[in-house]
Structure formats: structure tokens, C-alpha cells
């Protein structure tokens, strides 16, 4: 699943160049497109990564946070989260990442229920990971273009665990879907995820707080053509064509 072994074999300094920063190994190395080696998931191979600059819709910064006992260290939170990421997701959605936990350059496959029986198969790329935070970046066709950063830090007498999503819907269809319940569904998704994480860490039940800021109200109509890559449409079409192909296959005869 590793798209690029982020820092394996990476020199600590390049001759005649600026020394690498102390967190160089925490960043993924550059990729132009995700490849079939990335796990072979539907709507992943050949896709470019997309950040909030590339999306279509309004830009949102959504922050979800929960306060835990200070006895739970930020490093313990992130180690558990990176190591068992998909286990905290709501049951209707599946996350298939490396068994050893998330590392920079990894690609994980997603199969997400988006409501009404519709599913979305896509992936995410691990852009950055250190001991107190990690960031995922989305590919073309994902519901949104952006980054999701998971972090934990000590703040006064508590450990604050945070999920921050910086995103634009990737195309006009997704923008419409986000406006028609998509944002609410995403809020529920991360609230459930963070509640499950807190439970796993042995924390007392707490409230997941939420703050949503519209960073940019403008839509980027020049990127409307990204609807071609829409993974929700492609997942539906794949399901229909697979069902038709199964129907056309002759039934096995009696032996």
C-alpha cells in the first residue's frame, strides 16, 4: 500500500544543499499520480492528488475536538489513531490501510456509505505523519479536495484531540451533495469516529465540539470539469455494469 517509502533510504543531507529539516522523514515524497500498486482499489490508480486549491466548491475549515484526561498523552492518542485508524470509523464505512498503521506515503482505500444506499469507493494518501499529528490528502474523484489533519496536544489540564478538515467539494455534483446533507453527514462521521477513539483510549464519555468556518465563499468554476472523475458516479456505474455482467453469465449446468 506504500505509494512511496517516504524516508526510507533518504539521505540525511544533500551534498551542497540546505540540510533537511528535522521533520523531513515525516513528509511523503512527491508523487504525480497514485499507481495501481496503491492497493488496486476502485477510483485510485492514475488519480492525481488534490488539495483545497484544486477543488470546485466553497472552501471550508471544519474543526472537531474532544478533551480527554491529561493522563492520556498526545503521543498515545496519535499512536492508537494511526495504528487502528479504520477501527474507529462508523460501521457502514470501511477503511483499508496498511496493517502496521499509517506512515507517510501510504495509500489507503475507502468504501464509504454516503446515504440512500449509495457507496463511494476512493482512497486517501498519507501526506504527513509525526508522533503528534498526521495528515491525509485526497485524490481526484474523492468527495472533496483537501487535507484532513488529526492531532493531539496538551492544553492546560487536558489533552485536546482534534480533526481539522480543510476542503472544497471536488465538483458541482459533490457541492450539491454537500449542501443537501453532506456536511451534516460528515459532522456525524467525525463525531462518531472521535467518540470511538476516546472510548478505545479509556476516556470518560465526552462531547465532540465542532467549529465550521467558510474560508472562501467563491466557487472555482474552472474546476467544474472534475466531475468526470466523480468516484460516486463511477462507483455506481461499476456496480451496475458488474451486476449486468453477472446476469449475462450462463448459469452453471447440472453435472
Amino acid at each position: 500500500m506504500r505509494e512511496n517509502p517516504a524516508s526510507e533510504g533518504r539521505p540525511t543531507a544533500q551534498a551542497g544543499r540546505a540540510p533537511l529539516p528535522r521533520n523531513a522523514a515525516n513528509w511523503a515524497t512527491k508523487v504525480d499520480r497514485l499507481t495501481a500498486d496503491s492497493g488496486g482499489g476502485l477510483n485510485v490508480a492514475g488519480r492525481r492528488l488534490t488539495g483545497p486549491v484544486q477543488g470546485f466548491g466553497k472552501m471550508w475549515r471544519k474543526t472537531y475536538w474532544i478533551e480527554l484526561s491529561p493522563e492520556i498523552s498526545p503521543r498515545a492518542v496519535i499512536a492508537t489513531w494511526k495504528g487502528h485508524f479504520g477501527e474507529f470509523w462508523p460501521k457502514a464505512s470501511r477503511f483499508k490501510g496498511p496493517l502496521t498503521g499509517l506512515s507517510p506515503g501510504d495509500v489507503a482505500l475507502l468504501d464509504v456509505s454516503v446515504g440512500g444506499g449509495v457507496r463511494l469507493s476512493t482512497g486517501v494518501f498519507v501526506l504527513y505523519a509525526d508522533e503528534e499529528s498526521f495528515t491525509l490528502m485526497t485524490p481526484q474523484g474523492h468527495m472533496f479536495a483537501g487535507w484532513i489533519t488529526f492531532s493531539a496536544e496538551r492544553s492546560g489540564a487536558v489533552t485536546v484531540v482534534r480533526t481539522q478538515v480543510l476542503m472544497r467539494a471536488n465538483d458541482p455534483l459533490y457541492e450539491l451533495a454537500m449542501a443537501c446533507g453532506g456536511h451534516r453527514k460528515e459532522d456525524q462521521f467525525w463525531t462518531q469516529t472521535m467518540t470511538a477513539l476516546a472510548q478505545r483510549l479509556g476516556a470518560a464519555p465526552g462531547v465532540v465540539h465542532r467549529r465550521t468556518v467558510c474560508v472562501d465563499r467563491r466557487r472555482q468554476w474552472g474546476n467544474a470539469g472534475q466531475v468526470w472523475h466523480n468516484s460516486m458516479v463511477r462507483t455506481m456505474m461499476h456496480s451496475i455494469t458488474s451486476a449486468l455482467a453477472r446476469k449475462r453469465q450462463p448459469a452453471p449446468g447440472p453435472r
Partner: protein
Amino acid sequence: MDKSMTSMVVRVGDGLTSVIDIRGDVTAASEPALMAAYEEASRQGARRLVLNFSDLKYMNSGGIGMLVTLLVRANRQHQPLAAYGLSDHYREIFELTRLDEAIGIYDDEPSALAG
């Protein structure tokens, strides 16, 4: 996460361009300092902004996210954003995150000012 140790100094670059010298660590915690620098540059009448990363020590994904926020604010005011002084490592990060498609990357200050 470490609290960011950042210093941002605004100076006039060339005519209506302001240069923001960024020193130290750039993380999400640097946002107030960067936004204050942006506002100072705008007050000085900057029509274009150049970020000088020559003394950047460290940047994490929170720092990259903060640059997107700055980019949106600058775009809203029709102020193009450019950068120089990025190490090979951070130049690669700008390419990976595709920030380089919105922020012009240059080798040095004269070429960034010439834009």
C-alpha cells in the same frame, strides 16, 4: 505539537510588492503572526506579496494549511502571492501539495520581485 517559534518581518520589496521574511518554524500556531504580517503589508499598499522562506527551519502540514488561508485572503484582494528561498525539500512539498499551482515559486528575491 510544539508551539511555533516564528518571526515574520515585513519590508518593501520593489514598488508595490511587499516581502515577508519568515524565520523559524511554520505551523498552525504561526497563523496570528502571518496574518498580522499580511495586514501590515496590505496597510503599506502591497499589490503583490513575496514570501521569503530562506530562514525557514521547519514546517508541518498545519503550516501548509495556514498558507492556503493566506492565499485565499490575498486572492480576495487580487494580490498575487510568490515565494522564494525554499529548500529542495520544501519545494518538493509545495509540488506534492500542489500549492505551487497557486503560489509562484522562484529561486531568489530578484526573480521573485521581477515575477
